[in-house]
């Protein structure tokens, strides 16, 4: 496909960019920036994972062993913030940077310079978050949802967290505007909206959600900041405010946020399942409509996080019904994936394994989601380990597994080498085993009455906590294997052909060699 990437330059793929560290600092290339996003998020994933190991080590047995309660609360808080804002979200933006231009036949992102800026904000924000452990008073300890008045009590760590969230928000908004503009304006001739790959569709919708809700988050943390330092009383009843108002505003951001973390995952899986089934995606247009309905519904269900906060009966009923409705488009997606596999000609390379693992475990997380939507049951399980189990089933075996699937799927295109299939499969099965060992038992802990965010517990919860901790250590170690596989793949290995997967149909496979050249689609391909 030399004609496409233009051999007029005539001197290889690495032309026109500075070398060494300045290549990465000044780059405006979507592939470089995508790579940096992915490495940044993996680094934060290890930091957040380290905190998770600390939490699980403390909870290995009843009694206080290694983390004092205050430090334990800092660990849980920062684990949540780092995983959500530092690991999962930037990883999906990294995928968007790499794949959106390749899949729509565009030469780069629309705002290449801004793209550089939105990445380089991230290390600043990440440093602020992590360094807050070392300031007087320690890091924020009010949970990743930082409800006031508790978060008004915290020290300097809370302020660092607030600034970090501001910066992350700015980065996300810029990234989203870039993605929307690129998708709407830079598609190859012939690629109508309804011909776009599903991954591009899900990212278009996700980017709109981000632009809608990130300013809300920025607003609410600013109100918290002024309550802390400038004498306002937005969330203080003594001054005429209301602590519960914070929860409404936060979750108006927070619920769409969980779909921001799962819609691109749906997109990745919707690319992988058809490829390895060697059969087109079943119900493409209903997939698009389902994604859009999930996004719209996600904006009117926020108070289901607050069923115990005290709400009128009609309020509780409205939010219960709206939440249950989300099960319908989500169910449609699962049925469509199943129908795509039905009578396909399937093979089970690592990306396919992770994609099937995703569907299997995400459905379990979806079921526990429906159970949590039922107000009377939620009254019992809210703020217990049941909820912890639920959202790790959708965020770890949902978002994270889809990210792994995507990395294995596109590594040949990114690096020009095949990863080790044996090690990849080992990574999948170990992750699958240890993930379930860690989180399945947490359902029982929650039902039996163990609250979340506690450093110590009654002895009746001891066995399941020990099992869960062993699983967590195994899961953590397994991810180092992933790092090894990726580094090995970058450094060498079997040469990847242009089209290593039989059933792939998107432009990066059909039109570009492996690895994809530094500048691709300078002349847009024509899509029929």
């Amino acid at each position, binding site marked *: 496909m030399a004609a496409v990437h233009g051999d007029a330059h005539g001197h290889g793929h690495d032309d026109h960019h500075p070398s060494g560290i300045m290549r990465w600092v000044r780059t405006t290339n979507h592939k470089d920036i995508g790579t940096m996003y992915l490495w940044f998020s993996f680094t934060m994933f290890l930091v957040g994972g380290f905190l998770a190991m600390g939490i699980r080590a403390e909870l290995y047995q009843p009694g206080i062993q290694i983390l004092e309660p205050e430090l334990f609360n800092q660990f849980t808080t920062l684990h949540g913030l780092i995983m959500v804002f530092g690991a999962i979200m930037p990883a999906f933006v990294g995928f968007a940077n790499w794949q959106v231009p390749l899949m729509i036949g565009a030469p780069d992102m629309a705002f290449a310079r801004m793209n550089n800026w939105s990445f380089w904000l991230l290390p600043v924000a990440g440093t602020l978050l992590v360094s807050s452990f070392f300031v007087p008073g320690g890091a924020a300890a009010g949970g990743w949802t930082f409800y006031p008045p508790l978060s008004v009590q915290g020290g300097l760590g809370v302020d660092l967290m607030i600034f970090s969230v501001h910066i992350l928000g700015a980065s996300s908004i810029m990234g989203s505007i870039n993605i929307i503009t690129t998708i709407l304006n830079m598609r190859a001739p012939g690629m109508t909206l309804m011909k776009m790959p599903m991954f591009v569709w899900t990212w278009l919708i996700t980017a709109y959600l981000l632009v809608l809700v990130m300013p809300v988050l920025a607003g609410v943390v600013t109100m918290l900041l002024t309550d802390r330092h400038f004498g306002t009383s937005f969330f203080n009843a003594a001054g005429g405010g209301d602590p519960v108002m914070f929860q409404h505003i936060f979750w108006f951001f927070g619920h769409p946020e969980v779909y921001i973390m799962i819609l691109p995952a749906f997109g990745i899986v919707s690319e992988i399942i058809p490829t390895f089934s060697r059969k087109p995606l079943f119900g493409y247009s209903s997939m698009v409509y389902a994604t859009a309905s999930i996004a719209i519904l996600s904006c009117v269900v926020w108070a289901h996080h607050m069923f115990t906060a005290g709400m009128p009966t009609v309020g509780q009923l409205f939010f219960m019904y709206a939440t249950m409705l989300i099960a319908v488009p989500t169910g449609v997606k699962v049925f469509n994936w199943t129908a795509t596999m039905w009578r396909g000609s399937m093979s089970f390379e690592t990306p396919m394994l992770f994609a099937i693992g995703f569907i299997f475990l995400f459905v379990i997380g979806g079921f526990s989601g429906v159970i949590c939507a039922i107000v009377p049951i939620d009254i019992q399980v809210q703020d217990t380990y049941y909820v912890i189990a639920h959202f790790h089933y959708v965020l770890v075996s949902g978002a994270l597994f889809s990210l792994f699937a995507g990395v294995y799927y596109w590594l040949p295109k990114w690096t020009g080498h095949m990863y080790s299939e044996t090690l990849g499969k080992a990574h999948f099965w170990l992750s699958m085993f240890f993930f379930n060992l860690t989180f399945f038992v947490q359902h029982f802990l929650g039902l039996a009455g163990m609250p979340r965010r506690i*450093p110590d517990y009654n002895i009746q919860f001891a066995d399941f906590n020990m099992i869960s901790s062993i699983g967590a250590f195994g899961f953590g170690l397994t991810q180092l294997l992933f790092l090894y596989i990726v580094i090995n793949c970058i450094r060498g290995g079997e040469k990847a052909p242009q089209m290593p997967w039989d059933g792939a149909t998107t432009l990066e496979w059909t039109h570009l060699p492996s690895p994809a050249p530094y500048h691709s689609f300078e002349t847009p391909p024509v899509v029929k």
Partner: protein
Amino acid sequence: MRSKSVVTLSGISALALYSSMAVGSKYNFPEPQSVIAREIYDQHIMLMWVCLAIFIAVFGVMFYSILKHRKSLGYKAANFHHSTAVEFIWTIIPCIILIVMAYPATKTVIAMKDTSSPDMTIKATGYQWMWGYDYLQGEGEGISFYSKLSTPPAQVENKAPKGENYLLEVDNRVVVPVGKKVRIILTANDVIHAWWVPALGIKQDAVPGFIRDTWFTADKPGVYRGQCAELCGKDHGFMPIVVEVMEAGEYSKWAAAQLNASAVKTSMHVENK
């Protein structure tokens, strides 16, 4: 044929697993001790069956396909990619299932929110890190006390063996009579706390500066334990809630003794002046 029996077998074993789980409370909610807790328990069991049925149906199909429709078996891919009828059906069926789920839940929500005409009212106040109780109305009106964790620190620091009610025991229990509608009014002194007793099926946040309420009627005498369920700082894990339900006669004696003790305290206070 073989894979059909595999699916059937795995279905049966999953059913057996779930039924065994329903028996031991280790795998389920604690045994319900009020009407509301019973409704919650039953709805949860019902939903588990519905989820299990859907799970078996969806993954039965998917795993059948995974076993049979493989490239390694030489299976040739079909090329269909949509069917309006099928897609319509699998949108409608979940809607119907959801309506069936929502109906009993709605009735329970309405019942849970009905705090009217209680037999007695107790105000619970969340503090960092203990609970305060004031009996506002009904038998025992005027009783007032704090309720703190009574587990010795040595047990937490692993210097002494842990007791059966480790972290779930307090110095002063909330005592209520059996079979009476008890309305709990909640507020907090500093940050948000939540008052949760799983066996009675209630959990309600206590929000500083605001009043919230909830209710329960205990079915039988006993001691029911719970914990604060909203992160409230350092000792969030160390402010349990213990409710002791007594027969009416015993409760009257307890209430009289409490009121008597506080009357003695007050009169001594007056004499000292």
